[in-house]
Each structure stands twice: as structure tokens, then as C-alpha cells.
């Protein structure tokens, strides 16, 4: 496998984290166009910790994820009563506010005679921790894949547990879920925190693979793509989110002949899919057939 393929793999993995966080919220019945905010905060926080204070990438990623979990949880609590379009709009407003914050955020330190750190609109360059460790793209890709697989495993377990079922329940009908004694508010906060955490991991790895980040990267389109990935892939299993990302970045972005029409093609596929397969390729029924959802071991 050549360098480009590995780096493509890393990009797919990073975006998969983002898509997974959007997917988790979709399960809980919340459509968020603002997950790029946590992705961005994760990217900035992780990059600052590694570039400005020389922290180890793992520690930095986990600390950034923890910070994000805190923010995600509290915002989820703030927006707990919003569903559907109002929630989508609110999440979008929050993300845009955050992006505005990034464009005003300047914090620099001189490292080895160079001024490093976020410089508002001019972005945050020279995020070279990975390169300075002498890692090649393959080593880095394996690490990112490792994180991705572990998060996937946790998602898989949750989806197969009654917690996963309850999550789907409150996604389908929050009011009935409350009658079932499901603490909807608690679930919403937990889901918000975990989703932010996952997005943050992706952001951290993304920043180190790009070596440069700027506010414009974390715009509305990134948030929209995250949701579209989850939808293309299907709402039956977390693997759907990966499928969506792989389809867009893996297939469309890498075929040079259609590169210029990638977005057009992507949007068309999305529309057709929503018409022929409203809940995505890997929807609940297919997920059940593939035994990706809880089922009776000994059918009565």
C-alpha cells in the first residue's frame, strides 16, 4: 500500500469519528449539524497540547476528549428539550459561534525560535508532532485505526446491549420512553458527552494528519457531511457511518475523473438513496439480518 492510500485511510478514519458522533445523536433522535464544533475543539486542543507543550499525542487526545465531553454534556443538557429542526438549527448556531470563536482565538508561543499556535483566521500551522517523532504515514495510520477499532468495538457492544435499545427507543418516541422509566434527560446528556468525545478524537488525529488547521475547515459543510455519511451508511449499525465516509472520501474523492463533480455526485446519490432506501444502506432490517442488533438467541 502506498503513502497516498495510507493517508487516505487516515482521513477516512478521522471523518469516521465525526460521522460516528453524528450517528450516535441520530440514534437518540437528534439531528445535529454542529458536530464539527467538537471536531474543531478537539483538533485545536490536541494540537496545542502537542505543539506548544510537547505533550504525547495519546495523552493530549484523551485530555481534549475529556474537555469536549464536558462541553458536549452541558450543551446537550441546555438543548435537551429541542428535537427535529429546532435542535438541528440550534446545534448549527452553536457550531457557527464556535467557529467565530476560532477565528478570534490567538494563542502563540515561541518554540525553537518559531511562533506556533492558533492565530485566528490565519489558522494553526506546523502541527508536526507526528513527523518530528519520525513516524511515517503507515505507523500513524495504524495508531489511528487502532483507536477507531476500539471505539467501534465499544459502539458495537452498546448497540447490542439494552442501553443501545433504550437509546433507539428514545430516538423513536421520547415521550413513550419516559413512560418506560427511561431517564430521557440523562440519556441525552450522556449521548451528547460521548458524541463530543468521539468527534474530538477524530479532530485531534485530523489536525496531526493535516499539520494545519483553520476555522474555515470546521464549517457547516463538515457538519452536514457528518450527518449525510451516517445517513448514507444507514442507521441500523455504527458500521453504516464508516460505510458512508468510505463511499464519499474513499471512492468519490479518489477517482480523478469525477473529482470536479464529486459534490454534485454525492448529493445526487444522497437524494436517490433517501428515496430508495430511506434509512440508509445498512438500515435496521439489514442490520438485523447481519445480526448486528440484539436478537433472540433461541427464537420461540
Amino acid at each position: 500500500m502506498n503513502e497516498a492510500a495510507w493517508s487516505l485511510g487516515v482521513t477516512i478514519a478521522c471523518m469516521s469519528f465525526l460521522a460516528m458522533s453524528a450517528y450516535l445523536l441520530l440514534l437518540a433522535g437528534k439531528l445535529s449539524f454542529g458536530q464539527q464544533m467538537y471536531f474543531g475543539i478537539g483538533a485545536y486542543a490536541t494540537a496545542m497540547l502537542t505543539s506548544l507543550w510537547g505533550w504525547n499525542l495519546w495523552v493530549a487526545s484523551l485530555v481534549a476528549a475529556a474537555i469536549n465531553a464536558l462541553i458536549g454534556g452541558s450543551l446537550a443538557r441546555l438543548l435537551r428539550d429541542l428535537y427535529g429542526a429546532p435542535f438541528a438549527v440550534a446545534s448549527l448556531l452553536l457550531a457557527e459561534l464556535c467557529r467565530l470563536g476560532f477565528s478570534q482565538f490567538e494563542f502563540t508561543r515561541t518554540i525553537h525560535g518559531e511562533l506556533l499556535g492558533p492565530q485566528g483566521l490565519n489558522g494553526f500551522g506546523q502541527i508536526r508532532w507526528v513527523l518530528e517523532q519520525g513516524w511515517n504515514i503507515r505507523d500513524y495510520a495504524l495508531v489511528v485505526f487502532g483507536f477507531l477499532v476500539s471505539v467501534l468495538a465499544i459502539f458495537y457492544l452498546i448497540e447490542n446491549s439494552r442501553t443501545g435499545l433504550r437509546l433507539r427507543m428514545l430516538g423513536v418516541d421520547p415521550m413513550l420512553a419516559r413512560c418506560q422509566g427511561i431517564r430521557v434527560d440523562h440519556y441525552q446528556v450522556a449521548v451528547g458527552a460521548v458524541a463530543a468525545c468521539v468527534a474530538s478524537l477524530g479532530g485531534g488525529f485530523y489536525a496531526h494528519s493535516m499539520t494545519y488547521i483553520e476555522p474555515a475547515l470546521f464549517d457547516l459543510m463538515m457538519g452536514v457531511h457528518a450527518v449525510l455519511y451516517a445517513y448514507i451508511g444507514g442507521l441500523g449499525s455504527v458500521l453504516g457511518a464508516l460505510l458512508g465516509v468510505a463511499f464519499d472520501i474513499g471512492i468519490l474523492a479518489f477517482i480523478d475523473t469525477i473529482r470536479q463533480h464529486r459534490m454534485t455526485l454525492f448529493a445526487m446519490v444522497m437524494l436517490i438513496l433517501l428515496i430508495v432506501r430511506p434509512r440508509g444502506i445498512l438500515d435496521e432490517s439489514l442490520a438485523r439480518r447481519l445480526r448486528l442488533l440484539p436478537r433472540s438467541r433461541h427464537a420461540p
Partner: protein
Amino acid sequence: MLLEVKDISLTFGGHQVLAGLSFALDEGACLGLRGANGAGKSSLLHILSGFIQPQSGRIFFRGQSIEHLPLEARQELGLLRSFQQARHFRQLTVWENLLGSLRMADAPWQLIWHTAARRHMERVLREGLEIFGLQHVHQTRAGDLPLLESRCLEILRILLQDPQLLLLDEPCAGLNQSHASHILDAIRTFRPRVAMVIVEHQVSLLHVYCDRQLLLEGGQLHSLG
């Protein structure tokens, strides 16, 4: 004494729905509630299950005042209700609806991993499915069920949450006599000790299954012996 309702009043848009209504219910008893449409039967269930707050009055559940408790807290005490139009988690299958609803003390690690507990759960669910005659549809989407199965699923889902008092809002609406009796028999077989308040228009059913019947008229209750 399981449930004690004292002097409940409710007004909607200037119209007195319930006027100082009081009654009590013993453990394991079944109370039939009758009345014309709009008499306030459903409103009473709304108040008992915590959907709406009465303007005045007290509600005691096993001696504990519950009128200010939210839905979830009442559910935890074992006070559960069904709806006039059966409600499910439509995109989930019958099996998933039941598995997610079954009340079982989950250890923290069971939140994401509980294969050990699964065998026990499946036994309970299979028993429920057999009693309510839902075995053949256990993998069907709840949203695709016919009326009888839909009603059965709703009630079984509630029973799996280990209720102490069951508030049934016209559980047999639209069903014939035999189907209705099938549901009520199933409830008694699956949870013999559960107390019930049944709002129902089919008087004959109430005669058979309830120890006591009340008629709700002009916001007041009248005992029918």
C-alpha cells in the same frame, strides 16, 4: 391500601372536568371506570400517571404522596399506563420492544455487556410472548402489527416493567369479546397480583374482571357496587 385519591379537581379552559373526586384501591384489586365520552376518564388516568397536574387534591401510592412526582418516578414506583391508541417504538421489532422494556436491575457493566443476564431475560420474554400469543410475530416491526397483536404488545411491554398498578385506557377498544377476554386473561395469567384501573366501554368485561366499578359523571364518581 395501594392507591388513595383525595379530592382531585381539574379544570380545562374554564370547563370543570373533575370536581373533588376521591376513591381508593387495594393491592391486587381491579377497578372499572365507566362514563360517557369526555366525562374525564382519560384525564383521570393522565393525572394518575403524571402527564398533567391537578389543580387541587392529593394522590397517595402506598401511603406516599406522589402528585408532584414526574412520569419516570411514578414508573419506578410501579404505576404504569397504556394509551387509547396503542403506542410502540414503531421502528423496533416486537422482540426489541420487549427486551428494552423488561425491568431488570442492570449492574453498571451490564450497561454495555450483559450476555450473562440474557438467558434469564429471554426466558421471561418467551413466557410473555407465549401467554399473549405473540410468538409468531416476535421479529415483526411493531409499527406493522395488526390491532390485536398491537394491543397485546403494548400491555405485555408494560407488564414486563413489573407494575404494581396498571392504568389501562380502553385496552379493548375495537376488539371483539373473545379478543378482549384473551388480553385480560393474559394479564391475569402473566401478573396475577397486579392491581388495575380499567377505563372501558364494554360493561360486560368490567363485570367479569373488576371487583368494583365507578361511573364518572359531571366530574364526580358514582359507585356502581
